[in-house]
């Protein structure tokens, strides 16, 4: 009836997903695992937007795969997690803005690597415009403004600020096209109940609970390993974001310039976040490496690992920069750190980062829909 062994064209993929969702809807055994199954049980038919919605609601916890009596080698060849992973890949590509950059998802690992190399080159080039080799490789005292001796603050602020604005706009465009495609009003997104519940589910990763025992990572025996590492990654990222925000405030509002003392708020937040990110990203790469290959779409490994590797490198170079900022290595480390940060920024709308955007939207939509009566289907 169906097969999900090899990557498919988009039409085939949607058609395949429609078949599989029909099977799941007639079965419903997995209803207790996550939000996807109650959401699909509200429907009799699955149009293309339903497929994208359910695909992004799926957190790839794997529970349903091992519970499925129709999983391979059964002739239905039903592999729900892999199929939904492929659907998500299509969502990311389809709603990317500008559209032609969606193609970056086709070989995302390669794309992220090339953009990273380009970003490093660009940062080094920018630095070379302002300083000679001696300045680049000399030691600076840890006094205020030392970083700006190697790269002027305005250059850093304007280039990164500009990129950040573009990234925010590209992500916003993705969302603003994805949300209405599900048949939802933009205004409804801001409904306080569903919005806070959706965000709440995302913050605690409720749908990685697999009905209470965790998800099937790193092995088919359920555990909370993946959820734990994701928390380290997400909250580590948020701490780093907080660190940057506080530093921006210090710089502009208090005229207090980087590098900051070890016990200052930006450094404390950044160090905690950086260490959490190292643990989280390394852990996620590890559980993904260990997991049953059946759960994943193999062509997406590059996307997954590319994003995690960038986050890992950012934390690593950030922490090294902190340790060696009074040595001759500071200039090179700063260049490397800024290079990978730039690469992360540039690949945010065209890499794995967007999973948070579409999954968040799907979660809010789930809670909106939950409040509505089920159309057509009688209770019994």
């Amino acid at each position, binding site marked *: 009836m169906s097969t999900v062994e090899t990557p498919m064209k988009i039409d085939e993929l949607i058609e395949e997903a429609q078949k599989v969702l029909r099977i799941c809807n007639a079965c419903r055994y997995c209803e207790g695992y996550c939000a996807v199954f109650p959401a699909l049980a509200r429907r009799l038919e699955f149009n293309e937007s339903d497929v994208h919605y359910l695909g992004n609601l799926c957190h790839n916890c794997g*529970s349903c795969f*091992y*519970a499925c009596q129709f*999983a391979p*080698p059964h002739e239905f060849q039903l592999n729900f997690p892999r199929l939904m992973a492929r659907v998500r890949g299509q969502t990311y590509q389809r709603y990317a803005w500008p559209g032609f950059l969606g193609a970056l998802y086709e070989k995302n690992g390669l794309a992220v690597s090339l953009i990273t190399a380009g970003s490093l080159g660009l940062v080094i080039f920018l630095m070379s415009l302002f300083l000679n080799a001696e300045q680049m490789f000399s030691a600076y005292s840890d006094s205020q403004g030392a970083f700006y001796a190697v790269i002027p603050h305005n250059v850093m602020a304007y280039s990164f600020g500009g990129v950040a604005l573009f990234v925010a706009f590209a992500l916003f465009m993705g969302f603003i096209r994805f949300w209405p495609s599900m048949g939802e009003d933009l205004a409804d997104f801001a409904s306080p109940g569903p919005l806070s519940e959706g965000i709440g589910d995302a913050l605690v990763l409720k749908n990685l609970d697999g009905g209470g025992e965790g998800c099937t990572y790193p092995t088919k025996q359920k555990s909370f390993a993946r959820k734990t590492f994701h928390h380290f990654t997400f909250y580590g990222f948020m701490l780093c974001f907080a660190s940057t925000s506080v530093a921006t405030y210090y710089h502009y509002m208090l005229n207090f310039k980087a590098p900051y003392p070890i016990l200052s708020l930006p450094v404390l937040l950044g160090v905690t976040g950086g260490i959490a990110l190292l643990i989280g990203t390394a852990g996620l790469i590890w559980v993904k490496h260990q997991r049953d290959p059946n759960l994943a779409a193999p062509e997406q490994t590059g996307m997954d690992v590319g994003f995690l590797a960038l986050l890992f490198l950012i934390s690593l170079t950030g922490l090294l920069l902190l340790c060696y900022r009074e040595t001759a290595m500071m200039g090179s480390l700063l260049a490397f750190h800024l290079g990978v940060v730039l690469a992360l920024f540039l690949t945010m709308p065209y890499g794995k980062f967007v999973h948070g955007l579409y999954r968040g939207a799907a979660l809010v939509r789930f809670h909106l829909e939950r409040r509505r009566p089920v159309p057509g289907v009688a209770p*019994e």
Partner: protein
Amino acid sequence: MLDTSKTYDLLVIGGGNAALCAALTAREAGCSVLLLEGAPIDFRGGNTRHTRNLRCMHEGPQDILTDAYPEEEYWQDLLKVTGGLTTEHLARMLISDTSRCRPWMMKHGVRFQPPLGGTLHLSRTNAFFLGGGKALMNAYYDSAERLGIDIHYEAEVVDLEIEGGAFKSATVAYQGAQHKVRAKAVVIACGGFESNLEWLREAWGPPADNFLVRGTPYNRGTVLKMLIAHGAKTISDATQGHCVAIDARSPKYDGGIITRVDAVSLGIVVNKESKRFYDEGEDFWPKRYAIWGRLVAGQPDQIGYSIIDSKAMGKFMPPVYPPIRASSLRELAEKLELSPESLEITIAQFNAAVREGTFDHTIQDDCVTEGLVPPKTHWARKIDTPPYFAYPLRPGITFTYLGVTVDDKSRMLFQDEQPAKNIFAAGEIMAGNVLGKGYLAGIGMSIGTTFGRIAGAEAARYVNG
């Protein structure tokens, strides 16, 4: 590797719910246990893979069970579906054990969940497994491995050595060779013969060729045949089983739950001559679904067509195959390869006989037919609102009831009523002791869980002296 030098305390033949319940119970009582599953690892678990709940007696609300389901009501329900073809002392043992088995199941990793969407009617009587029967089997196998039960897959028992009413050894075809394994006792829990098409044909004649096997393709009844040859006293007969009407487009084997069609009570069912043949509205569908397999089996070419109009669409669990759809009855008949004239006449007669009251699918409403044979006694509404939809139906056999007779220790009885010393039976292979005919949703898992645990405990008691 299969250790043929060792004499195990217990050999368990089979790898579904009853087998694992027996193996785990005996292992907990200190027995060394060898379990032989005939299926490959991916298809382990027999028909349990396709189950989702067990029917539980309970005196008051529990975590996931509402209200109460007292022993007497359970017994009356069983009497009703079997028409009295049951063994009262075994049935009562079963019923009372179902009120105690859930904690044991949870100890071995089974998790329960509230009733699934579309199954609210079962929230009082049936406890649903989180993830269904395959998840339950995974939990039991994990537990069995942790406890040190020796498990072998694709290990098919091809011969049994039984002497003087006692089991001595079994011959196993495994990895291309035959091995003799010895044990002090044996629990036989390897299912019915539902996937043995030749045997079905023997029992049913040519109509069996049109049956679909809703369950596992691995229950071929080979061990049942050996036991009968060794003089086991049989129970029920070869035509009895859990047989529902499923979508005719389903695979020959292993289609499981998704092949069901729940539209029957909302419309009419006709045979290939476009004639109705049974009251579609006799009772709530969950109480009647299990008779429709036999009803369709009794029709020419063993095919039926559930026909509804657009008023009924969306009022039942969505079946896996899309309905056959037409804008007129004539077009529908053509698509179904029925005679358009005959179908139009049948539906015109039906519509003319409908006395529509207040339609309510959640109660036994007052929408009936008058002067029609057979009548439709509830939920009768005219089929007059296009588009029209049809689902073709075939008998879908889940499991057979012909089995071996057991006593209250789940010991197999010989034809002279003497119990075997060390041969125990559990699950489908002895389900006929409780279910002479008919079916009660979730009782298959109750039988496997109860008699599996009894067989395991009694085998351990025999072995431990």
